[in-house]
């Protein structure tokens, strides 16, 4: 029983981590008012270029960086198309997803990739704690970045001027504009950060968890991330909780057969989206999305 628990918990964490990195990014983007659909593209691009970078340089660490940069690049494209050129953000998002899926599959055929994976870093003592030890303290080293990211992001959003402006931008862009702040610049920044973190998430999936790439590797994780942010009512805490819950749902699905339990697969696969919707319905009161959520901003008279 204990082993089973340990097993599922560890598995949940492993499955949640790539989501968590990306969710940090999506959270920022959404708070500044963008529903970033292209996060799927960002993750996939990150996953691919990470393995590519790793197999060229032979260092998975470098691979991670490549992944991050690719995510950043995709974020840059999205940002400039939708928040400088005011092309509808969903057009950009959908198109980018199409583009990156096609491109990675295409390149995946052209180049030959060598499997490579970052090493596990077990924290002495802590890793030996029963149940949570293996789950939390025996991860591959990039996993621990989360512990740096979360406080950093929270501080940036709630304690810095930039964060204040980001949040305001998501709520009432024209007011922010009248105050002399470049709304679309903030939103572009949001998307860049999102790309960066989503890229990291994808990279962690490929060179972190799996150690290799395969076609459409992320297979919809980006949308799960969006669901997680919604599930978390646009708070960082909540988003992380969402990732954990969804990770756990998958872990169950994958581990339970081994433990002799069977559940309806379709239901489990759909569970993140169902849960996200339920969360919004049940906690409708305090569950408010940013007012300018997904609304493009073009400067007009106030």
């Amino acid at each position, binding site marked *: 029983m204990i082993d089973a628990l340990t097993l599922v918990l560890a598995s949940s964490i492993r499955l949640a981590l790539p989501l968590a990195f990306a969710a940090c990014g999506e959270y920022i983007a959404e708070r500044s008012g963008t529903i970033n659909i292209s996060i799927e593209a960002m993750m996939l691009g990150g996953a691919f270029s990470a393995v590519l970078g790793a197999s060229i340089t032979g260092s998975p660490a470098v691979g991670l960086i490549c992944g991050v940069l690719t995510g950043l690049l995709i974020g840059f494209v999205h940002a400039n*198309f939708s928040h400088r050129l005011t092309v509808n953000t969903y057009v950009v998002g959908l198109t980018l997803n*199409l583009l990156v899926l*096609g491109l990675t599959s295409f390149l995946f055929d052209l180049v030959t990739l060598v499997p490579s994976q970052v090493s596990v870093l077990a924290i002495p003592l802590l890793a030996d704690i029963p149940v949570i030890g293996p789950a939390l303290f025996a991860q591959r080293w990039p996993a621990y970045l989360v512990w740096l990211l979360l406080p950093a992001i929270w501080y940036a959003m709630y304690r810095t001027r930039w964060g204040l402006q980001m949040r305001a931008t998501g709520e009432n862009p024209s007011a922010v504009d009248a105050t002399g702040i470049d709304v679309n610049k903030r939103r572009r920044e949001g998307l860049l950060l999102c790309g960066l973190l989503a890229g990291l998430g994808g990279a962690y999936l490929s060179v972190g968890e799996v150690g290799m790439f395969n076609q459409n590797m992320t297979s919809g994780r980006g949308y799960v991330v969006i*669901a997680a942010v919604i599930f978390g009512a646009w708070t960082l805490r909540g988003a992380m909780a969402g990732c954990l819950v969804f990770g756990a749902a998958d872990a169950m699905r994958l581990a339970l057969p081994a433990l002799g339990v069977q559940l309806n697969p*379709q239901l489990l696969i*759909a569970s993140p989206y169902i849960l996200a*919707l339920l969360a*919004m319905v049940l906690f409708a009161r305090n569950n408010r999305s940013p007012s300018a959520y*997904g609304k493009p901003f073009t*400067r007009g008279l106030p």
Partner: protein
Amino acid sequence: MSDTTVLAEERTAAPRSHASPHLRLWLKGYPTLLTYLASLSVALGISASLVMMTGVSPWAAVVALYEGSLSTPASVGLALDKAAPLLIVAAGTVIAARAGLFNIGQEGQLTVGATAACAVAIFVPGPGPLVLVLSLIGGALAGAAWAGIAALLFYKAGVPIVIGTLLLVFIAVQVVFFAVTQPWLLQESGPEGDVMSPQSDLLRTEVWLPHIGEYPGLNFTSGVLIALALTVIVAVLLRHSVWGFKMKMLGMNKLAARRAGISAAVLGGTALLWSGAFAGLGGAVLLTGGNHRLQPGISENGGWDGLLVALVARENPVLAIPVAFFFGILRAGGGFLASTGVPRYLVDVVTAVLVLAVAFPPAFRILRREWRARAAARALAVEGKGMAA
């Protein structure tokens, strides 16, 4: 000293004024056309270089695209068939958008629609044509219902439409998958102990959408006509009817609409239902017109692309017609291109690049207007300083 500064002014000003006037005039005249040319050629350049990486000559690829979509009447028909469902979905999207509601869940509504249509076509007995009509209606209703969930979530629990519709897409996919893996539901039937694939039986031919024209001549399913008819109707109603007027009002200012006696929940809700119904119908047309059998992947992103059509057409139903056809060409030609040895997903890449290329110029025009304003301000500033000196 003042006149020296003035001279300096002139000197700096001189080159500006003497720069080839013809060229500038021409640039002034056709900037948008130019940007279109530029962005499209960039897109084609990228596509070409990618194609070359596969060892196929870009020209051959272009020819293949053309052959697949436009060369013969038959292939035009194929492009039309591919375009029809997208156009229907797009028309629906426009309705919701007009009421200020952003439905991005067409993919889900379409899939559910196809499923319902299939169920009707298979389980409902009766004369073919009747059943066909019923299954089309069934598809529309199912799509509407699926959108209805989002509407309910919005008006009862305040879940933003975008979120509701988006998340329901991924639930819908699982619903279909469930349906086609359950023998007691839609999974294909066969001799006992035989291995069944996750798909429905082939629909009996009487419930297929009638085909118009004969191979090798121009031939396409009647879905194309349905799509065109619906789009025109939507265009007219939105533009000229009281209903359209109210929708516009609601879309632009809820509060004012409310004061004018419009219930957002009712009018907006129905708008959303309509767009869902259209998407569902798109699915039904896809099923009865093309595949004739339900499979998990039946939509082939038809919902997403339909949405894309509507957006690229800037939510203008009439404009959506050519755009949808453009997508039809890419889809039909794309399949053909693939069959010449270019990897399929390269077609997606090309499609994506082209969409961005088409979206770029109008957006760029707006941006340039801003730049001009800034530039003008700066020019004035220079002038001002000159006067001050």
